[in-house]
């Protein structure tokens, strides 16, 4: 009996530590995704500094709106940042989630992004994004799947009037 007591204490302490350190990170990550874009390998056109900044800002905003949209099942949030097939597929996901009573809680823990293609005329950019995510699939308030995952994405962004919009966003097994 005496030998069990320290084990219970250790588990309780571990649980407290996990709760204390986990909750603030999730709150912070939900509000701001950290996006670092490396443009050194972009070709055939070089990416200018202003474009790099705009790209980082718009891609981070896109991720933030996507996680909110998937959590709240609100496709209307996507229109400012997603167009084309990316917008269509995310809208379909949200529609199907809402129909099934599901939603996703994605905690965005940051991205390492490489720009791999910038079209000669400057209207399209392809990114390779390695994202650190915590993904919870929820059935109502019940978690049916939870994982911490490193997910690789190929993203294609096109220039709109005053921002970059995500036209393709596909998770891939690797680069």
């Amino acid at each position, binding site marked *: 009996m005496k030998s069990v007591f320290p084990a219970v204490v250790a588990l309780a302490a571990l649980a407290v530590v996990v709760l204390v350190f986990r909750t603030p990170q999730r709150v912070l990550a939900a509000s701001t995704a950290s996006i670092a874009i490396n443009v050194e390998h972009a070709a055939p056109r070089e990416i200018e500094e202003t474009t790099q900044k705009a790209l980082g800002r718009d891609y981070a905003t896109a991720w933030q709106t996507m996680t909110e949209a998937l959590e709240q099942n609100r496709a209307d949030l996507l229109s400012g940042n997603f167009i084309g097939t990316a917008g269509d597929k995310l809208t379909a996901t949200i529609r199907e989630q809402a129909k099934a009573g599901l939603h996703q809680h994605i905690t965005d823990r940051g991205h390492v992004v490489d720009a791999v293609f910038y079209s000669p*005329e400057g209207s399209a950019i392809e990114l390779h994004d390695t994202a650190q995510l915590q993904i919870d699939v929820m059935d109502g308030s019940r978690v049916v799947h939870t994982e911490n995952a490193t997910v690789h994405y190929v993203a294609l962004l096109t220039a709109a009037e005053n921002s970059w919009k995500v036209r393709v966003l596909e998770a891939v097994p690797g680069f």
Partner: protein
Amino acid sequence: MTNDIEVKVKFGGMTAIVLLLMCCFAIATHAAELNVPATVTAGSGLTIPSSGSGSATLYVVGPGTAIKRQVQLGQGIQLSAEELQNAGRYVVALDGNTATFFVIAGPVQSIAFLARPSRVPADTPNVVTGTAFVFDKYQNLVLQPQPIKFELTANGQTVSRSETTKNGVAFAKLDSSKMEGPAQFVASSGAASVRRVVQEVASDPCSIRMTAVRDKNGILARTEPIHDCAGNPVPDGTIVTFTAADAKGKSTVDARIKQGVAEAELPASNNATISVASGVVVGNEIQWRGGQ
């Protein structure tokens, strides 16, 4: 006694860690029981084997898909071709077990083709750019390398370039043809093909030759028909600058080409140097001696 307590505390801590690791291992082992392939081709469907008996709730969440339905354990669980059309990462949860797999794009079915610019000067190297993104029938970006051909045809003359896509995209820079006119710019991969029209127009003038005559208001300078170096007439509307310099100073008139020629009326003078230019091209110079 103190040492005895320390040993017990250490032993208890160790036990807790071992228990925790065992729990984690048990969870991980249990989760691995759902057997799915690593990748599935878009639109091909999937059967997931299941064990046990009774019914359970199946969850599948992926791009464009969110499924919740009751399934019978012990039977193969079908995911239809329609449910797995979109490339990306799918999460499957069944009876406490979870797994992930990827749907990857199928063969090329369509091309998104950016051709720039829509209007280019004729007979100019690497002036037409084409960028092609290849997609399958479900609008998934095809990331496997694919052969792609770019062809630019104008006035029966074709320039072509074969490339291979990388990360779903290929591009080419092509020369414009010698003669002006609409050029057909085609990108094709397998049976997929997209056509754009690029208007090729005369480039900068090759040379400018003008004459000058006295008229009632001064000096009328007029060019001969202006062509580029390939013989194409330079488009109407192109600016030509006439300049007359004499002892009183310099007069400049910008005129547009109309029906192939440009003309301007310059102030009367008995001793002037008249020159003409368009863009970077400078034409002939006339020493005007009161019309002599």
